[in-house]
């Protein structure tokens, strides 16, 4: 990826810092629950940070601003990685996160749009996300709104049949205002996607469904910014999918690429090691 002069070093450093914060907060919150999605949140930490600190248009003081960009987590189990960012950008006070997974808390493993400011749609049933995005993108068309709808999906999510109903429908409805982001971290709960239920070739599948396909390293902040900065115009007719090559558990050496860490719990010693590695950064 060529360097893009318009992206300042400060911006890139900020996003890297926020991705680090997302990972550290993920560890802190899961340590409260003693079970949670580390690997699949770490794999999209840079994607989350790039979206919230560069791409998305939103107003934390007016979370339901009708013209805001929408962000849907098809892979809702990564919500733990987003909560700290929503607090950091001002949707709610950070100490609200201390209730994570407590009885009646707004903050659980999967996000609830009616309980958490800044969450555009509740999720938890893998495969719904892109369909919700199709609906939101259609609404923008009906209303003449210029917002974009972004949907984060896992590569495992591509195993769900409904996903392909949605993939088929978006170009049919000419939804150039819809952007799918595939966090291709290559693992699911039970194993490695390629072996368990091979979803490859991902790129060719989306191309054959008539999407504009972009591939990018999902941990390269500069490349992510460049990709999002060069999306086709909102009023274009072809939806875009950004296939992000990512590493499950990214940032903690002993977690990287291990499906065992998709849902797990770090004991005290391992937690210290993980925090050290994330703080050291790479």
């Amino acid at each position: 990826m060529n360097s893009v002069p318009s992206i300042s070093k400060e911006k890139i450093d900020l996003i890297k810092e926020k991705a680090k914060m997302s990972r550290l907060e993920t560890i802190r919150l899961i340590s409260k629950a003693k079970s949670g999605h580390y690997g699949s949140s770490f794999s999209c930490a840079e994607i989350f940070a790039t979206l919230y600190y560069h791409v998305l248009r939103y107003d934390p003081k007016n979370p339901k601003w009708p013209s805001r960009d929408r962000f849907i987590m098809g892979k809702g189990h990564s919500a733990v990685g987003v909560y700290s960012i929503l607090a950091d950008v001002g949707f709610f006070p950070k100490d609200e996160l201390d209730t994570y997974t407590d009885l009646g808390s707004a903050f659980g493993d999967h996000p609830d749009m009616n309980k958490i400011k800044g969450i555009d749609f509740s999720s938890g049933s893998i495969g719904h996300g892109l369909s919700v995005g199709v609906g939101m993108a259609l609404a923008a068309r009906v209303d003449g709104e210029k917002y974009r709808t972004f949907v984060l999906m896992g590569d495992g999510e591509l195993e769900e049949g409904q996903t392909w109903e949605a993939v088929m429908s978006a170009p049919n409805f000419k939804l150039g205002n819809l952007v799918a982001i595939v966090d291709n971290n290559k693992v699911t709960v039970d194993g490695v996607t390629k072996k368990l239920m091979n979803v490859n070739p991902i790129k060719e599948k989306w191309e054959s469904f008539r999407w504009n396909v972009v591939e990018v390293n999902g941990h390269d902040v500069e490349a992510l910014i460049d990709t999002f900065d060069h999306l086709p115009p909102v009023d274009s007719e072809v939806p875009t999918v950004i296939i992000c090559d990512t590493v499950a558990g990214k940032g903690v050496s002993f977690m990287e690429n291990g499906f065992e860490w998709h849902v797990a719990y770090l004991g005290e010693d391992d937690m210290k090691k993980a925090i050290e590695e994330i703080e050291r950064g790479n």
Partner: protein
Amino acid sequence: MTVHTDFHKDTWELYKSLEMAKQLTTGETLARLGDEHPEIVALCADLGKPTRIYEFGKKFPDRFFNFGIAEKNMVTAAAGLASTGKIPFVSTYASFLGILAAENIRTAVAYPNLNVRLVGTHTGIAMGFYGSSHHATEDIAITRSMANMTVISPADGTALAEMIEESVKTYQGPIYFRVSRGREEPVYGTDGVKVKNKIGKANVLRQGTDLTIIACGIEVNEALKAADKLADYGISASVIDMHTIKPLDINCVLDASKNTGAILTVEEHNIVGGLGSAVAEVLMESGVQCKFKRHGIYDQYSIIGKPYYLYQHYQLDGDGIASVAKKFLEK
């Protein structure tokens, strides 16, 4: 609104039958409301014409979306539309809506409490010989058990139109409308009973002293016919149109139990989990003494046949209901 037809009762040809599906008023009602309510959008899944929601699409093509044969995507996209303030009306056959897309309705519509209106048509055994796969005798039970959900089975096209209008103008939360194939004789309207159908409020259509028949959907009209027949036997029957199954008009049920001491529920649905179950729950918890029977499909997969004969077979026509009621009272 009386249906006039030159067709023999055996005849059911899809496109000809569309002209006869006059009680499927979703599309025309939405077309009428569409200018005043820009928040209305409509979605279908390759059954826009048989469900007649296409009537809205003809007038508002930019607010009408045909999703092809992909109900899960359609229902979930409707939820996305609703999250932006739209009131999406989704219509397809009930077997592909309340049953096939049940998880999408539960997770994407009912749980977030969104203003999606689902209109499942050709419910119960209305699809006749098209196959048991196309019958929907579980959709009340499924949707009724979803929190936030309102479940309505209107007696005819007038009732459907009135409650659709109410749902657009004043009602909050998701609704599952359960309607038949639209070829049935109407209960309400210019030629029928003049009652304004209101969500959650049952209509007492006939007052009797010996028995109350509580029905929903097209069985309301059959219950009225049954009441006529029962009068010939010297049995005086009340008839209640319990169009809203959830939230149930509890007071109406309790009044009926006190007034007649015997209740028969009638629905084209499995007797497990439907209108009969909802009424039974109220009666048991109230502690009133009342004879009670559920009539419908008796926990089996319905056989196929032309609808006219199928309703007869299951004693879901006027004569059949009268016969069931008579035996019930003799017990």
